[in-house]
């Protein structure tokens, strides 16, 4: 069955069984490497993409259910500049192996989009189902706070420019 998907602002047409989980289409048909297989059960978050603003576990979503508004890790950078979360991840030197970090970053992105200034408890709560077996959680939380600060400073300076 021919389906059209809009991912990271680009349109793609694929010919797949409509029940195929979105993850396999993103990885195997579109050649994206951000979302990865971890459990196929929606438990770990490695496959997270953002669909219309919501962190979505692409391993359990049939491709036919989503058509547009899909953002993957590859789509976060704008105009060659990393998203503040990605930059915070580098500044904080978060990853160990890094295999789960797609899930960490994409979940954090959706969290901050909804709540730009979360409390520590809200970060723990919002990130809780996103697993890391190298146990980088402490640094992930530090990087989120660092990004929150950087984004707030950016908003202030943007306002000053406008003023």
């Amino acid at each position, binding site marked *: 069955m021919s389906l059209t998907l809009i991912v990271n602002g680009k349109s793609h047409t694929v010919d*797949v*069984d409509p029940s*195929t*989980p979105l993850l*396999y289409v993103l*990885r*195997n048909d579109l*050649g*994206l*490497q*951000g979302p*990865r*297989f*971890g*459990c*196929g*059960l929606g*438990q*770990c978050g*490695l496959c997270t993409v953002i669909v219309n603003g919501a962190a979505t576990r692409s391993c359990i979503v049939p491709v036919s259910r989503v058509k547009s508004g899909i953002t*993957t*890790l*590859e789509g*976060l*950078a704008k105009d060659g500049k*990393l998203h503040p979360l*990605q930059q915070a*991840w*580098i500044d904080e*030197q*978060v*990853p*160990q*192996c*890094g*295999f*789960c*970090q*797609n899930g960490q*970053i994409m979940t954090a992105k959706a969290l901050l989009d909804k709540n730009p200034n979360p409390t520590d408890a809200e*970060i*723990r*709560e919002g*990130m*809780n*189902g*996103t*697993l*890391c*077996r*190298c*146990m*980088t*959680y*402490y*640094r*992930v*939380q530090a990087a989120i706070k660092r990004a929150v600060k950087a984004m707030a400073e950016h908003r202030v300076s943007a306002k000053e420019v406008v003023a």
Partner: protein
Amino acid sequence: MTTFNGIPKHVEDVLSRRSVLKSAGLFVVSFGPLTAPVNGQNPAGPYPDVDYRQVDSWIVIHEDGSATFYVGKTDCGQGTGTSFRQIMSDELDVAYDKTACIMGSTDVTVDQGGSGGSTAMERDSWPMRRVAAEARRVLFQMGSERFGLPVDQLVVNEGVISVKGDPSKSVTYGQLIGGKRFNVALTGDNINATSGAASVKPVQALKNVGLSPQRYDIPPKVDGSLKWAVDVKLPGMVHARNVKPPLAGAKLVGIDETSVRSLPGFVKVVSKGNYVAVVCEREEQAIRAANTLKVNWQKPSAAPFPSSENLFNYMREVKPTSSSKPIVVGDPETAFDGAAKVLEADYDIPFQGHTAISPAHAMADPSNGQMTIYSNDMKSYGMRRGVAQFLGVPREKVRVVWMEGPQGFGRTAADDAGCEAAYLAKEIGRPVRVQWMRSEETAWDTKAPAFAVKMKGALDASGNLVALDYNARAADYNHVGYNEADTVLIAQLMGIRRGKPAEGSSAVPSDVYAIPNRRMAAHVVSMPLVWETPLRTGNLRDPNGPQSTFASESFIDELAAAAKADPMEFRMKLLTSATAEDNGFRRARSIAVLKAAADAYGWDRRPSPKPRGTGEILSGRGMAYSFRGQTIAAEIAEVEVNVRTGHVWVKRLVCAHDCGLVINPQSLRRTVECAMLHSLSRAIHEEVQFDTEKVTSMDWNSHPTLTHADVPEKIDVVLVNGDPNPNRPDLPPYGGGESACKPMLAAVANAIYDATGVRLRRVPFRAPRVLAALKAAQI
């Protein structure tokens, strides 16, 4: 265009393909230029071993003066490549940001065994340093010839050799040898002994060592550009999924291939012995076909293992398969007889899984009469040997291209997917990608052995520890090795048996306490099912350390409490009461590390438990210490125990750590933090559960792990250099990857005791178990 004459083919290939660094100095390791297939086919073989006795096998200097280092290591996520660049650029005298590091692909890098045992800096950085120093010596020689001056009239700074006192006379490394071979032979009977004529620099002369350049592998990991082993795609590839026996020890009776033949994309069912796999054109098709395939299995006549609830009774009663000779100091029997107080306690640590965040995976390409495996195997060289043996083909026809993957920690040293992919690729004649499913990985990965430990200790009337007995049983029989062709799971399922299963190992505690009378005994026991079992044991990060240290360091705390002594002081007394010189100043360094941990935490001296608080939350602190090799770690945990729910939150962690020379402090701190949290996860969550037919831990609910909610509020890592002469020029680096895993289980148990007065001797400390113990103690 440089021409190469009379040089080994692999070096020529590598030289001609090596790309110059990007100007930013950020070099993304990819399998692009080095190992990519040519026209969709494997490059022509054979793939000989890379000769470690040639400088050219380790270092290439490009015309722009940048250098690429080729090392026989892999990175499990601790950023070792960055540290190798630091240490080699220092010895070679090139700027750090003009270097790159290529790791672990068997046809382009020397065989240093990949990674394992925290040997990256302790052992494997030494040949790298010596080869880089030799390259520098040779470059000085070339400079000397160019200027007609003796080498002592020359100086070098960041790859530029100049004449002393006349900086206008200078030449760059790139001008001297860029794009050309060194053609310099090295010596050494084995790769660890590799050396040239040059000496390495004294520690004080190292400039990049001790700094914390950011890891080069992190940017491509956060922007999505890194190509991981899971990402490899080849023309004509197919996807495979395994079908595992539903019950441990079940025998395959028959397969009804018609159940999947008409499914879309179906290619083939491959089966031999009890190994079954389904191959399809697309990944989701293979998953569906593996779930649909009708297979008839025969239930085994005997139970493969006791249930996880009865595990420890079984382990205590069964006859050991082997017992090591006990280590005896003094006369423990007499000391116990004459003691004022004798304590006894049993400690139980269950099987715990690797449960890697990504299940096992590999891609194998059988094209052009060769076999290439794209894999995250941390011991890629071992996989090459194992696959060659398993397939019965010469090693020269096999290469393993190492690529990044989920954490290794020993799981990928017993890699199953690589052998499976190679076998299936040979059968199908097309590139095959294998990936295990979550339930398969959690149930069937290699496990850390369960331990049942009996402790006995004696105090004299003054509260001095006069005798200690440690007696451990580890369920570790038939411990699997490193990609061995007769122990990887596919071989076992196919009915391959080695003559005698591996003996396995137990462990004795790692401390340097001065205890006058001591006995340490270690035994290995077996489960009834030895082969084809989901309870295969393998190395999990510091393989026996967390288990043995949980028992020994919890019990030291029990003895301190019985002596009404502060747990830190009690240990300190055991360390300071002997003055004998010891290996690597372990005793002096242990004392320094304990002090550093106590200072960083602000340890108040008092016996445990503290007077019990009131209210729902009880807090306390506990410590534990041990060493691994020459690396010392002391850890302090502060906990909050919810007496209503039994929930334990570790609010604060401190680790003082001495691993000798520190190459990259920031990388080390991150590694230590994460190693502590890994063991915290084992302390409070992890246990493999099984009934008498099968493993029932199949996913993240049934084998839970640490989550964001569990993370401490504050973690402090203190890097200590407790060498009595900390400025010595030959200060060696010791291992840093596993040492912090060891003390954590005991530190948490000791903190729970401090908070509640309740001693937990069974891991993990999940809420229901803690609550039951609190209730039993009427709290």
